[in-house]
């Protein structure tokens, strides 16, 4: 009786009719989602690799195979390497600075929320209003990157009507004549500030729930042993959160590589001024919109391997034994 009913553990005995019915059912439920996913997600990824070795312009059906010609052009021709090299450099900077800054700030805030408050009877508490801070800090995460970009573009306006300049004027700071995002040496920093601003809340909530799962007794024991909060943080909280931090690092890496959308919206000439904020996604988009689809795919492939290498490297560097509670 229970043999036929237990769908997750099929019967040992062969019950061909009901088994066949179950198989049909499984197939009927899987065929649409799998087909859609294969055609619209996996096949374009595979094609990107294929197209990167052709001279396809995006529309001509009779493109031909050119081998690694596109990659050679990208790295050697002056026309292209003037975009590509700064873009790779900027992506690398973002990939290091953004995760570091976000994780440091998010950990700090999460620690404040969980154990930064008054301790009563040796038990550490979070600061008051931690629920409010969580709701507020998380909010940028639900905003579109477009909205964030436009909002900050307005904040960074180079005239005295932008929020940043207006606030600085209150403190008597003179107007910066070169502007914020129109200064080639500053633009990347300004974009990264926005990335950090929008991500800190999410990782604060994420680390905060991980911290809440650390038993209070461990903190209490540390307090009784005379450990300061700073010591507690570095000796107890940080090691126990190691896995969450590594996950956060990987996700932030992906976000940093996606920085194109922000650059596209916020910066002059979408990657400027003077290629000061050029990123790989932007280089790719320019090729795509100029009818050089094959080159765009080649850039995508380079970025893909660049990401893969960095991810593997960071996984390798951070590999260690788990701490068991």
């Amino acid at each position, binding site marked *: 009786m229970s043999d036929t009913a237990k769908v997750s553990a099929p019967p040992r005995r062969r019950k061909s009719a009901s088994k066949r019915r179950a198989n049909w059912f499984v197939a009927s439920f899987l065929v649409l*989602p799998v087909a859609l996913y294969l055609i619209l997600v996996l096949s*374009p990824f595979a094609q990107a690799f294929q197209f990167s070795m052709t001279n396809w312009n995006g529309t001509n059906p009779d493109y031909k195979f050119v081998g690694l010609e596109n990659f050679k052009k990208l790295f050697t021709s002056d026309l292209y390497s003037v975009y590509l090299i700064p873009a790779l450099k900027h992506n690398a900077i973002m990939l290091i600075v953004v995760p570091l800054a976000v994780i440091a700030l998010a950990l700090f805030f999460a620690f404040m929320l969980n154990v930064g408050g008054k301790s009563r009877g040796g038990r550490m508490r979070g600061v008051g209003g931690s629920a409010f801070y969580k709701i507020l800090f998380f909010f940028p995460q639900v*905003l579109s990157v477009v909205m964030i970009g436009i909002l900050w573009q307005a904040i960074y306006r180079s005239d005295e009507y932008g929020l940043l300049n207006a606030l600085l004027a209150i403190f008597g700071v003179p107007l910066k004549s070169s502007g914020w995002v129109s200064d080639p040496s500053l633009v990347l920093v300004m974009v990264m500030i926005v990335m950090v601003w929008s991500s800190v809340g999410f990782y604060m909530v994420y680390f905060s729930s991980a911290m809440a799962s650390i038993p209070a007794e461990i903190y209490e024991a540390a307090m*009784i042993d005379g450990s300061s909060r700073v010591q507690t943080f570095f000796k107890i909280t940080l090691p126990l959160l190691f896995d969450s931090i590594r996950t956060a690092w990987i996700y932030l890496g992906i976000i940093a590589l996606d920085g194109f959308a922000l650059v596209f919206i916020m910066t002059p000439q979408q990657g400027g001024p003077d290629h000061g904020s050029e990123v790989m996604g932007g280089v790719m988009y320019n090729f795509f919109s100029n009818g050089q689809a094959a080159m765009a795919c080649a850039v995508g492939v380079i970025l893909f391997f660049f990401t893969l290498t960095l991810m593997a490297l960071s996984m390798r560097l951070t590999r260690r034994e788990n701490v068991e509670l």
Partner: protein
Amino acid sequence: MATTTQNPAPAATTAEPKGKRGIKSTGGVMRVFSHGFLALWAAMIILPLLWMILTSLKSNDEVFANPLGLPSSLHFENFGRAWEKAGIGGFFVNTIVVVGGGVFFTMALGSMAAYVLARYQFRGNRFFFYLFVSGMMFPVFLALVPLHSIMDSVGLLDTKYGLIMVYVAYSLPFTVFFLTSFFKTLPHGVAEAAMIDGAGHYRLFFQVMLPMAKPGIISIAIFNVIGQWNQFLLPLVLMPSEENNVLTQGIANIAVKERYDPDFTALMASMVIAMVPILIAYTIFQRQIQAGMTAGALK
């Protein structure tokens, strides 16, 4: 505190009172310190949003006379200009259609796939599961160019149907991943009882399992609404003509136009219009949103 750790022997006898006082005083300094930083970050989030809302209610002249002040009178006509002239209304409707269709079919197809992957053993089960999960790791931009040509070749480029299908496909990996683990947690007893009562596989799914999975489905649906509402790269490449633009694209275009034809207050009003639905959804569902989105990072 440092002295007690350096001299463990004398400290042992006086640990109790001394330790307590120490904790209290550092707690006090710490509280001021942490509240200070938290309040600073809170200001960094509130001020820009508040400034955006205030600006959207001022006249353009007032913005330039007094960028930080309160509006002297409320200029709601900025919103009218944003809705009519800048075409926010049309983008808004497009977004609702695409996100509505996208999320509905994402949840339908996603829960079907997740259900059979979670509760049926068949050859290739693990293969299909990892096939879907691997999609979470691919960067979307790599697929954009070939995706454009695929949609073009089947005549779905620049159509809402096409964009809905793409949204569904790109939302499936996370949806399937999350719902699979959710369906696994549902009790087996109910399903067995239904089967004994003669329910077939389809009836079991639609009448028993789907209602039981409602909490999980709702939190992932919210997650997908936010994700698809905010999507920018896919429509940027797949919906070139302006009358088909979704909100994010439309607003990005307005912002670009603003450089040549400055109407700063209408731009800020467009931003407010686009932000309101998200703000409402976030306020109502913030607990589920935070849970759903942080669960996505826990793999």
